[in-house]
């Protein structure tokens, strides 16, 4: 990738560096990168890799805030580096770190294995109420029915919300914002009948009850998803489920 150097201006990008083969703990390294006011932080990192230091390791793919690969801490705030502009950090420079609350694999790359496992536990797919065949045709929804889940379906698994969640940092077992928002995305879908199957994840100590409504997850989300709302709505559903079982131990109906 080449950036035309039409400017003599530079900006300092301070990167966290960690090499698991030689470092016992992370260190910081600052690079002076040619600066134009239309450059994203990701472009700055790419300039470093291509022209200054090929050993700098970071994830990226789409460059347009849809793949969810380039989540980083920019001056301590979780953000996608592709949609954050260097001009917002001019002239002081920016410190780039891997997302907090996750183990660092190398430099700016984190290990998301824990999240991928949790994502699997919420069964993030439509579970039909009854068996259906293609000939049954489409399943229309009203705008109000779609409105119930649409924003939750915008999640791109970028993990900014996990980096924003102190409870996830303190209680790594917590299912966490994105996985629980996706759980609610399917529960709230009028075509889905899998609520009872997902109730165990919601009800668990590590489910919605590990959330203390810090609310920062919903603030940092780049796609307008509101994980804090998904989780806290389900505290009500979990309570209803608890009393429903207390009154009717065989009952499995949850609204």
């Amino acid at each position, binding site marked *: 990738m080449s950036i035309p150097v039409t400017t003599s201006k530079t900006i300092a990008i301070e990167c966290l560096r960690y090499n698991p083969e030689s470092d016992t703990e992370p260190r910081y390294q600052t690079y002076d990168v040619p600066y134009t006011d239309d450059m994203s932080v990701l472009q700055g990192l790419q300039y470093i890799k291509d022209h200054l230091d090929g050993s700098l390791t970071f994830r990226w793919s789409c460059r347009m805030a849809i793949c969810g690969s380039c989540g980083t801490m920019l001056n301590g705030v979780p953000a996608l580096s592709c949609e954050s502009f260097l001009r917002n950090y001019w002239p002081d420079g920016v410190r780039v770190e891997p997302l907090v609350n996750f183990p660092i694999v190398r430099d700016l790359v984190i290990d998301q294995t824990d999240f991928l496992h949790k994502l699997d536990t919420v069964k993030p797919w439509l579970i039909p109420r009854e068996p259906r065949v293609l000939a049954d045709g489409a399943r229309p929804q009203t705008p109000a029915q779609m*409105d119930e889940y649409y924003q939750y379906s915008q999640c791109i698994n970028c993990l900014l919300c996990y980096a924003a969640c102190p409870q996830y940092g303190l209680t790594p077992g917590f299912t966490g914002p994105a996985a629980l928002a996706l759980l609610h995305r399917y529960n709230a879908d009028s075509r889905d009948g899998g609520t009872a199957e997902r109730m165990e994840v919601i009800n668990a100590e590590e489910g919605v009850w590990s959330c203390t409504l810090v609310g920062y997850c919903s603030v940092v989300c780049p796609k307008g998803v509101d994980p804090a709302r998904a989780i806290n709505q389900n505290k009500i559903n979990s309570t209803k489920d608890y009393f429903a079982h207390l009154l009717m131990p065989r009952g499995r109906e949850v609204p």
Partner: protein
Amino acid sequence: MTQRTYVRPTAGWWRRNGHYRAYMLREASSVFVTAYALVLLVGLARLAQGRAPFEAWRAALATPWALAFHVVALGFFVCHAWTWFAVMPKTLPFIRMRGRRVPDEALVAAGACAAVAASLLLFLAVWWTRP
């Protein structure tokens, strides 16, 4: 996959940004709400014991330290009430009126107005029935 990863410490996490500090203030305000509830409970117990203990409790509340506590507690009460209503919409299912979703700001404003109205009513009731 076995690899040596680095896990960063979480100590002092709440100092990282203003949002976390506001959250800690919201949670800490509940301590003062509890303390004030205990003061009221003691008053109730004193009332049950008779007129003299109740008057002694009232006299204790009129001391400068007790008044200072009330001023501080009032501040934390306002903070607690406001932050409580500010997060309330997150705990509710979507509410629709005439086919439209009620915006969060309207829910927060309605809750805060209800709290102010209830406080005013209580204050006026006490004021009108004072001996």
